[in-house]
């Protein structure tokens, strides 16, 4: 399912042959916020990617680069001053012949009405795993009450059926059944995360959208949370995980999309991205080199304001490979939007940069720790 990196050009809409039809096809997606005085904020520009069943795509990038806006756009949750362009098609689940005539077909998320999104998409076809589960859950009701309400709302099952379904949903998210009658404030961060995941799974949505699911959690909890998300992906769901945690992305992603200043600048297979040959966009390379297990070297400078993006490459001002060519906007080609990608014809200065730092022992060790802390 590791599809070759898409070119990102709107023309290349056809899914790669051999892999299942994508659940989600995004082409040329742009979001602009119109501010007072007519100022425009380019939060997302020309995003393009496919997401197949059973695949996890990690969308990584610095905070404020537009990742969460992209997620909000897919769910139709943008504020009123947002203007979208392009397309985001949610397709009927893979080979299974359309379940219900009503909601089985392809839907264009960007132009769908609020009613349609509320009735057929949110919860049913896209499950949202939120950034802050504690804030996502209703504080005055127990987890069971919230799960049962979601079951009733999404499946129409009532009474004892709802109770059983709620327990099944909790069980699928590995939420302990004896904690169902607790209120959100009585849960640890990890359990609150599972409760929120359980809610996202109730509708059996073929696409899961996880928006920074691990922010603020400690390492062991991060690993457990993403491992659970991976498990749901292995069940045949598609997962779009938005995160700035590169270690979490490395752990579960099949493919990685790197976003910078509202644009996807690199879309690559995760093993190649995190291992050898490594990222090809200088920004992505810099981001990995900033990790404490690698060079621990920050990218100089700061990202540009989304309200005042340069005409050319937005990373040029911080890039040591920048030349006059970077004054023109790079066109995504072969999964990377850069005039001087690493490993491309103009040989990389100083040879291949340290990409061997991904020792598998680290992952194994943390997995052990994850088990040890299972009772947190």
């Amino acid at each position, binding site marked *: 399912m590791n599809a070759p990196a898409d070119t990102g050009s709107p023309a290349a809409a056809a899914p790669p042959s051999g892999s299942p039809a994508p659940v989600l096809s995004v082409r040329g997606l742009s979001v602009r916020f119109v501010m007072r005085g007519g100022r425009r904020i380019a939060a997302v520009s020309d995003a393009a990617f496919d997401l197949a069943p059973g695949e996890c795509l990690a969308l990584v990038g*610095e905070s404020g680069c537009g990742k969460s806006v992209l997620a909000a756009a897919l769910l139709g949750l943008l504020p009123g001053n947002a203007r979208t362009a392009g397309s985001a098609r949610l397709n009927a689940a893979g080979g299974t012949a359309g379940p219900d005539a009503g909601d089985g077909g392809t839907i264009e998320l960007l132009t769908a009405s609020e009613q349609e999104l509320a009735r057929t998409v949110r919860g049913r076809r896209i499950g949202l795993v939120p950034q802050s589960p504690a804030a996502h859950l209703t504080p005055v009701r127990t987890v069971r009450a919230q799960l049962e309400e979601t079951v009733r709302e999404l499946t129409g099952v009532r009474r004892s059926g709802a109770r059983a379904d709620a327990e099944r949903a909790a069980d699928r998210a590995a939420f302990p059944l004896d904690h169902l009658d607790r209120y959100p404030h009585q849960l640890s961060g990890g359990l609150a995360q599972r409760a929120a995941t359980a809610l996202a799974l109730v509708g059996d949505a073929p696409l899961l959208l996880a928006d920074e699911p691990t922010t603020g959690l400690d390492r062991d*909890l991060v690993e457990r949370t993403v491992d659970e998300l991976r498990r749901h992906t292995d069940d045949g769901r598609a997962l779009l995980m938005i995160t700035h945690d590169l270690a979490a992305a490395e752990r579960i992603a099949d493919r990685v999309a790197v976003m910078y200043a509202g644009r996807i600048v690199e879309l690559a297979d995760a093993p190649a991205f995190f291992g050898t040959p490594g990222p090809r966009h200088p920004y992505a390379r*810099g981001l990995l080199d*900033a990790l*404490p297990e690698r060079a621990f070297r*920050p*990218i100089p*400078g700061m990202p540009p304001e989304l309200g005042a993006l340069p005409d050319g490459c937005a990373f040029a001002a911080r890039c040591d490979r920048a030349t006059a060519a970077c004054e023109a906007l790079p066109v995504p080609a072969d999964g990377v939007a850069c005039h001087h990608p690493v490993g491309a014809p103009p040989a990389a200065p100083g040879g291949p940069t340290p990409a061997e730092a991904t020792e598998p022992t680290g992952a194994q060790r943390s997995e052990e720790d994850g088990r040890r802390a299972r009772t947190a």
Partner: protein
Amino acid sequence: MLELRDITAGYEPRTPVVRGVSLTVAAGEAVGLLGPSGCGKSTLARVAALLHRPDGGTVTLDGETVTGWRHRAPRRQRTAYGVLFQQPRLSADPRLRLGELIAEPLRAGGRRAEIADRVGELAPVVGLTDELLRRRPHEVSDGQLQRACLARALVLRPRWLICDEMTAMLDASTTAALVAVVESYRRESGAGLLAVGHDRTLLARWCDRTVRWADLTGAPAARAEAPADR
């Protein structure tokens, strides 16, 4: 020397979160404190920063036993610390512009005359432009706000830095940038550091030594030592 000895602390009587923990940071030393969330390491960091009065044990700051916490601590002790928390949004007054936020410790200490110079000096160090200094917290990203909070922590030139999960909300590049700022300040000032976190790779890379919370509390050796002193 910052010495925490046999500290017991918590928020409710009879249910301490921290029990009999001892930890020493030598002058100029960087100590990482590693533990899972909810273990009490942040409480210990707050005790060390004189922000939370412990129920038992002693804190010795540069040879002087601490007797007052929070506003009851003498100013010369309070201003010896720079403190950074995990969530910049919760530790920044939303009404202040970033420039005012950074200047606040000077203003509160009646040293307004130094504000322009000191803020002008620190802003480029933490990577904030004049334009950003004029914005309020809701107009900047988490990373930019944490940069301002770091400048605020350094504005009084503290001898001790307490960083409680300073980088947990930040991306890799901002993390590396802020740690580099802290380290360059420490090199020039000789300040000591207590960095609390759950990322062992980060703390190992950042600090001179890393102490695991479990070793501070659970290990029999640590337990046996404490009663022997009494």
